[in-house]
């Protein structure tokens, strides 16, 4: 059963130095508040997993929390590059960053395998591309019925998955809707999970297209109103596109990033 705690408590209890941590949310419901709390609590040597590392991972990387990045598309959507990620890769600032790179289909299937309790997934993917040359978690298997060769990817089972949702009930059952992305799989694949929510309600009334995560597959629920901003929470607030554009300028140089970081550390969750 999920325990409902404060966000600082939840991060303190669940996220440990050296963990494989997935913060998921496909453009929508990105758990920024939780990511910021991880920065405030100065976690180190994390392997950060995420299909689309965007601002939140640029921030975690710049803050020195990450030793490795597992991903399939790293950019500032609609704006450009992730400058902190680039700086870490090219100049090892603030520290070296190892990468493990997949396609979206590969990453999605890795989470599916993880959620399903099997060690790998098969897909039609990667054939002819250069990715398998650099990524050891890509292999192949032969169909025992047709002899056909398919790509195989290793299951992803993060130590901790963090997602943001619209709401939870008092028992800790979680409900999210809109673009639900890979969140269900990421939570089910994880050893531990934290869900931040816009609000806690008495009852989860049904919503079209909603995904429900039962309390007993979630370890901690923490309220974090506007916890997905500057991304958005369907039905609650819109994406702050200006903030995404503004990040491009902040992140371009180490000084402006560092003052942003100091300001974040000085603020409360």
């Amino acid at each position, binding site marked *: 059963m999920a325990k409902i705690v404060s966000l600082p408590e939840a991060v303190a209890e669940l996220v440990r130095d050296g963990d494989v941590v997935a913060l998921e949310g496909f453009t*929508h419901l990105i758990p920024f508040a939780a990511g910021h709390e991880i920065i405030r609590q100065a976690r180190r040597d994390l392997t950060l997993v995420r299909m689309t590392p965007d601002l939140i991972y640029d921030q975690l990387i710049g803050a020195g929390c990450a030793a490795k990045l597992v991903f399939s598309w790293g950019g500032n959507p609609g704006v450009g590059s992730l400058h902190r990620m680039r700086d870490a890769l090219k100049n090892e600032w603030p520290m070296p960053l190892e990468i493990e790179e997949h396609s979206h*289909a590969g990453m*999605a299937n890795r989470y599916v395998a993880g959620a399903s309790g099997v060690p790998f997934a098969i897909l039609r993917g990667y054939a002819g591309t250069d990715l398998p040359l650099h990524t050891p978690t890509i292999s192949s298997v032969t169909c025992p019925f047709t002899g056909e060769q398919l790509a195989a990817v290793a299951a992803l089972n993060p130590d901790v998955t963090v997602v943001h949702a619209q709401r939870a009930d008092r028992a800790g059952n979680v409900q999210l809707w809109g673009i*639900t992305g890979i969140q269900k799989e990421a939570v089910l694949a994880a050893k531990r999970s934290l869900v931040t929510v816009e609000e806690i309600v008495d009852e989860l009334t049904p919503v079209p297209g909603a995904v429900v995560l039962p309390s007993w597959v979630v370890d901690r629920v923490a309220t974090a109103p506007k916890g997905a901003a500057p991304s958005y929470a369907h039905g609650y607030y819109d994406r702050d596109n200006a903030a995404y554009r503004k990040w491009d300028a902040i992140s371009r140089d180490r000084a402006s990033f560092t003052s942003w970081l100091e300001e974040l550390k000085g603020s409360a969750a």
Partner: protein
Amino acid sequence: MSTDSWTADEMMSVAAARSLREGQVCFVGIGLPSVAANLARRLHAPNLVLIYESGTIDTKPDELPLSIGDGILADSALSVVSVPEIFNYWLQPGRIDVGFLSGAQLDRFANINTTVIGEYDEPDVRLPGSGGAPEIAASCREVIVVMRHRLRAFVEQVDFVTSVGHGSGPDDRRVLGLRGAGPMKVITDLGILEPDPDTAELVLTAVHHGITVEQVRAETGWTLQVSADLRITAPPGEKELTTLRSLRTVGAAS
């Protein structure tokens, strides 16, 4: 800007929109492909089915999404499914007619690079990476590439094969087990390239109105062959231009 003149980007978007046929099912990447697909839907293909990798199926956004998972895509969709489902059930089996892609580098066999410029381990430029592109390129019945024609982008051989076009020749896709036909058109701001049926090498089949073959060659990093029946793309019509210019992007200043 009057409709008597237009930019090269506008010509590219209009040409790309024209390449889509009514009723087709189209897997759309963000950026130039999204502009072209949404333009086609407002022009000659009102029942074009747009699918974005965020899981939105048959979406009809009023404005252009800024990112692949904008709320406007979910709000206007017939159905929103999970990310694994969009790749496994919808893209992978080959039920999508057209994949619409762009890239940072493209080579003479229409292989696409969105990963790195330079060496993988010590890149000159680190690009965003694969996203959905490798499997879009593999599995759609055909692929249309939309990208600006620049010498640094149209290269003899891509630095990194993120998404397979025609590999290194006409038989490669079959050997690799890729079931779609691959890139059948590359639409740029200068003209249109199509794979030669015999060699799979991209040849120039059309230049846009006002563009010369020499201009195209100057921006192409391999010895570009020109089709015997080179066409000239009709200039954007008034309706095409006014519709394109009326497309607003979500959250943009008007």
